């Protein structure tokens, strides 16, 4: 009973957060609404006893992606959009149609055919199991990902340094 109440509260918060994030003209408000959505999602993960995923949801999506979005928005002009203007455009019908099609033809059949447990699994130390999985069968994947991310990091540093400085540039500076 308690779980059901919690689920519905979190679900309503998540849907409302997502709606506000899409509908608001004010970008900063939109980002914070998106974060509310992420937080509610993390609560739903916690309800499924997937605590590590819940923590990572907060750490990565709110802590990192959210801050990144804020930084990106601060670099744009007209951050606080015009709230009065209507956000729907002429192509909105096709947007609705595409979204409905994805729901009916892709998501619903997948949900119905999948063999889902009705209740959450009894408590097992999920973090430890995840760690063993990462270190034993998926270690190569993990290492490749780490290499990729390191390459991306070095690439970002190189890109932010700009091209090689010519002699004229350094004379100017």
């Amino acid at each position: 009973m308690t779980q059901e109440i919690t689920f519905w509260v979190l679900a309503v918060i998540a849907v409302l957060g997502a709606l506000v994030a899409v509908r608001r003209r004010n970008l900063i408000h939109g980002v914070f609404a998106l974060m509310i959505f992420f937080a509610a999602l993390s609560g739903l993960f916690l309800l499924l006893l997937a605590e590590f995923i819940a923590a990572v949801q907060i750490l990565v999506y709110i802590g990192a992606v959210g801050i990144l979005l804020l930084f990106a928005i601060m670099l744009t002009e007209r951050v606080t959009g015009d709230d009065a203007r209507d956000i729907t455009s002429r192509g909105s019908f096709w947007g609705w149609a595409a979204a409905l099609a994805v729901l009916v033809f892709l998501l619903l059949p997948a949900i119905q055919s999948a063999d889902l447990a009705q209740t959450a699994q009894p408590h097992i130390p999920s973090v430890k199991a995840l760690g063993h999985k990462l270190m034993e069968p998926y270690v190569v994947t993990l290492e490749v990902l780490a290499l990729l991310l390191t390459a991306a990091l070095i690439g970002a540093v190189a890109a932010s340094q700009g091209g090689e400085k010519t002699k004229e540039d350094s004379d100017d500076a």
Partner: protein
Amino acid sequence: MSFELIKDILIATVPLLVIFPSLFAFTTWMERKALARIQNRIGPNKTGIPCTRIGLFGLGQPAADGIKMIFKEDIVPRGADRLFHLLAPILALIPAMLILCFLPLEFPWGKFMSAPVQAFLLDSAVIFFFAISGLTTLAIFMAGWASRNKYSLLGGMRAVAQMVSYEIPLVLSAVVVVMMVGSLNAKEIADAQTGFNWFVFTPWGLAAFVIFFIAALAETNRSPFDLPEAESEIIAGYFTEYSGFKFALFFLGEYIAMFAISGLAVTLFLGAGDGPFLTSAPWLSVVWFIVKIFGLIAVMIWLRGTLPRLRVDQLMAFAWKFLLPISIFNILLAGLSHFALDARVAATSDAILYSIHAPHTHSGAVNHAPPKLVAGQKEAVMGALHYTDKNWVGAMEWFFKAALKGHVQSRSILAWWFGIWAMGLTVLYVMAKGLDNVSRSEVKPREYLYAE
């Protein structure tokens, strides 16, 4: 929702909601007094019991401050985003309060009632702690942005950059402890350190503790990392436009975050509730915990009174070029030395056990004659057993006894132990020295545009 559940929730959370805000009031008084003494002043000494002349060393000051804050006018700038201006101080307080739940505080009344000892017992408590404490950044950004003030926005952006940078060494220094215990559970980390097996007493733990403490100072915007609220540069940073109770909420949130992050430092490195006299009085563990937190807070106050503020480029260079490499290196060192010592003790204890049992097993007279022990062998075996229990202090004590009795292999283990200590500290020191030379940010002296 049953009554039992509500009762359990209240028993677990109300102490946190009562104890830490009241400690906050005491801490503000302590900070004022300490700073005043450092600056050769007296500090608050008049405010005591109202309508009398009893001063009580100024202990009434926090209450007077609180009353003043509540009745002060709440000013919202005209161009401000009213909703976010209101939400920011609340959002600053919530994560700080929430992370207190992850600390392994064992309140004594938890044993008499059917309540959990810890408010929120999770397998991944440590990672949750870091995840939620990162949300404070958002509140600060919100405050800076909603005030529609240049100084606020500057402070907010500074805070975001600083907190995002210092979160990385903070987490990486905690990784060492997580590696040693093999768990992210705060309770298990606390249990692993009972009997003075604190992680500060290992070279990697000591280094990680220092890194953690520095990064924690930056995370809580304490001096010398108080750039987001640098009074001499940007008025009060992100809370320039805040007054009255909203300002008080920010203040409260900042101090609760200080308590929480010191609490995590205590849990990870300083043995959580471990301390003397615990066998006769187990309720002392919560007292030791809070005493240790106050020790760390006292150091923070002391640093605030003595260190000047960093420049922005120094701040960034220190995080990325010094703390980050040294914490990664520390993880490597911890892994290497720990597993080297592990392998050494395992090999030695195997050899000892073999030398005790082997001559008797093949003759078929195992139980008849007790095996003759070479001097110190019994102690060495006890040490090895303690070592496998992760009771390093006890293990070293037994090995030391064995070595005193002339047991050679125990001597070699002790030599390894001291060797690892010396090597670890030397390597870390050399690394720090080298990084210090490299990581200093190069700033050319400003060219004067106007002739004197």
